[in-house]
């Protein structure tokens, strides 16, 4: 692996406890620009918690996360939210689309939040919906789509702002294997084109096969399997 100076996002010694439940117990993580890293491990092992800490959504009890050399916890809440909007894209494990908005409006939302005008934002959103082959439902609201279509909309939304890091928590969970595969192909192609890094939480090994390397989370610790074979 390349020297740590080229790392985009680095976490070290992350601890997080919910009540008496330890979710993270000294997790380390590093990802470089353009890299796709699969995060795997048993249910409840701390994968989503790790992803939320890396993205600055959940503050760790102790340990640090550095993005482009800046420590996330040292930023004000406002600066951290601005960074998330400008540099990160998200596909969450559980419901994430705004139910009142159409597909196009949902996908355009991250652009509107950073000040892109409505027309421009919606035309860029439409291009992503076409690329993900769901432009036929662009006027539908989340309640009027299948779970798989909703998941593709969420992926379009994560990609629309050309983020530096895409956080995807079980992005193919609602898709059958052929569709899951097409979405993974589109997601990783898009990421490689823009040199975006992808943190991909998945329990499916066929999905993880689209990654460059895998990290296994077990009992709140992350193990980098690169070079283990």
């Amino acid at each position, binding site marked *: 692996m390349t020297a740590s100076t080229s790392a985009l996002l680095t976490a070290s010694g992350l601890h997080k406890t919910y009540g008496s439940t330890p979710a993270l117990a000294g997790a380390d993580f590093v990802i470089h620009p353009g890299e796709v890293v699969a995060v795997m491990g*048993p249910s409840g092992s701390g994968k989503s918690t790790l992803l939320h800490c890396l993205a600055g959504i959940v503050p760790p009890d102790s340990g640090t996360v550095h993005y482009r050399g800046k420590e996330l916890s040292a930023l004000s809440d406002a600066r951290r939210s601005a960074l998330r909007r400008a540099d990160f894209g998200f596909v969450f494990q559980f419901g994430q689309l705004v139910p009142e908005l159409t597909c196009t409006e949902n996908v355009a939302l991250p652009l509107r939040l950073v000040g892109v005008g409505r027309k421009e934002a919606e035309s860029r959103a439409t291009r992503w919906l076409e690329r993900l082959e769901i432009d036929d439902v662009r006027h539908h609201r989340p309640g009027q789509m299948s779970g798989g279509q909703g998941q593709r909309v969420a992926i379009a939304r994560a990609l629309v702002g050309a983020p530096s890091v895409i956080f995807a928590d079980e992005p193919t969970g609602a898709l059958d294997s052929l569709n899951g595969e097409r979405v993974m192909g589109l997601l990783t192609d898009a990421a490689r084109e823009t040199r975006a890094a992808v943190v991909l939480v998945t329990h499916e*090994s066929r999905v993880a*096969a689209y*990654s460059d390397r895998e990290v296994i989370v077990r009992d709140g610790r992350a193990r980098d*399997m690169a070079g283990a*074979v």
Partner: protein
Amino acid sequence: MVYSPRMSISHTLLGLLESGPRHGYDLKRTFDQRFGHDRQLHYGQVYSTMSRLLKNGLVEVDGIEAGGGPERKRYAITDAGVTDVEQWLASPEKPEPYLQSVLYTKVVLALLTGRDAAELLDTQRAEHLRLMRELTRRKKDGDLADQLVCDHALFHLEADLRWLETAAARLDRLANVVRG
């Protein structure tokens, strides 16, 4: 029907003849392209298979090019041959109860010797994923036949891993019970 690799080669070669008569070297080349990712045919296998199929009336010689030698023969499938392919395609393969007997042996040994099953799983997963990445890349660049062949291998590798994951989780639970 008892499964044997040779049987599947002869059915596969027969199947390839359904689209039209072919020479032996053409059969080998097509077989290798379509199915030979991990096992290329020897010319000898093709000719011994074809002579057996000839004897059983499943193929006939359709023409012989000038120059002589067995590789000059052109084979065509007979009606009996088509029926044979049809029957083969319609009958399911025997499922293998212990698909990866080595993995099974290892996991059982881990249990018996009180070793960390999770460690075994992580190491095996890394090895499996390495191959799965390669297959995924090959599939991306390949034609439909490559995609089907790679998918088949990918789903099998995935099944191995899922079985290992479940076995490891069971063993860990069992170990916790034993340790109290």
